[in-house]
């Protein structure tokens, strides 16, 4: 039996009728049409489906859409402001933080969460903060570099009183 679920996705209020067994990741991709959130595994391990729910990074494959009732969900599509990439997106671009790009949305959302909790992380803290995300081609070195670069730029932007682009912060 379908149930109504009402939530906010990237700032837009939505209401849909869904089966309780529909996973949040399938809701985002198939119902909301936001295919930036990827599915990389079937075992809650890879983190490609990471989104923010009420500001917290979660694996959207391990949450039913009905559980997001009244929640604010943010996906990779919600980060940029027009043509202006979020600092993390820009940093992944600048530092070659991706190769095939499949895991990238999950890494960036996990990175957004990490920097919301710890705006100036060490390399070790970045590694621990991203332990729930797997990359199978770029390797992690440039990903760590990207997050560090974004942290510095976001810190500098904040210091200068310039608003940082949208995000979970």
């Amino acid at each position: 039996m379908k149930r109504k679920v009402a939530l906010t996705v990237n700032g837009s209020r939505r209401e849909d009728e869904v089966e309780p067994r529909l996973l949040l990741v399938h809701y985002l991709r198939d119902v909301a049409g936001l295919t930036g959130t990827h599915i990389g595994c079937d075992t809650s391990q890879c983190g490609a489906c990471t989104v923010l729910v009420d500001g917290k990074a979660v694996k959207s494959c391990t949450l039913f859409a009905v559980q997001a009732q009244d929640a604010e969900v943010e996906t990779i599509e919600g980060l940029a402001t027009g043509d202006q990439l979020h600092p993390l997106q820009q940093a992944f671009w600048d530092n070659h933080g991706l190769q095939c790009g499949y895991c990238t949305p999950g890494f960036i959302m996990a990175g957004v969460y990490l920097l919301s909790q710890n705006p100036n992380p060490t390399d070790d803290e970045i590694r621990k903060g991203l332990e729930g995300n797997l990359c199978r081609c770029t390797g992690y070195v440039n990903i760590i570099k990207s997050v560090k670069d974004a942290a510095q730029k976001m810190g500098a932007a904040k210091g200068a009183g310039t608003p940082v682009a949208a995000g979970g912060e």
Partner: protein
Amino acid sequence: MIPAAFEYERATSVQQASELLQRFGEDAKVLAGGHSLIPLMRLRLSQPSALVDINPIKELDYITVEGGKLRVGALVRHVQLQNSDTVKQNLPILAEVADEVGDNQVRNLGSIGGVMAHADAAGDYPTLALILDAEIVTNKRRHAAKDFFKDIFTTPLEHDELVCEVVFPIANGPHKYIKFRRRLFDWAIVGAAAQKVDGGWRIGLTNVGPTPVRSTAVEQALASGASPADAAEHASDGLNPSADLRASADYKKHLARVLTRRAIEQASA
């Protein structure tokens, strides 16, 4: 995979959850953090007819100290245990163990009550609960940890019984939990806990059998003055671990001895 269809209801109080569990009967399951249940449902290893979602129950989300005990509500997430000053001051080993459960995404949702109810042999909190004589409090009764973990994935919980709270003694003396694993976010291949309580050591092991193990032989050896190295030799006494993809039975017994020694040494350092 897509989980099998189920009925779904949200509970906002323990009372309401109890009523829903009674109404749905034996094939219903409680949905807390969902980080063991939902993967099992996706593999269709678990096909509950109904889920009672207890996440909206605010009364199960607290960490307090009362009467010399640390009381943790069932819906407290790993991330809360990891960061809680109350936990760090009163039972630091619990905060340290929480810090190493899964990854950020898992820690944001997984709950202590869920870990207890699920009773995975590789769960870390059950080992702490066992060696510390913690209690698991439900909507019906209080269970001593030593009577709670009956077998792998098996507890005395009835179908309409809901874990509400875990009560730990306060223990802020020397302690160490060592979790041996191949990747950061993995479950323990073997885990070893050492915690000093009232001048005596409590020693326990994770994932060396269907339930957590309290290593009384090691505790006794330490009490009679044996060195950590000599005492830890007893860590594999009576163990009969099953082999799995990651470790043979002999290797797990070896790890039990080595990790127990390291846990005692590092706790004492």
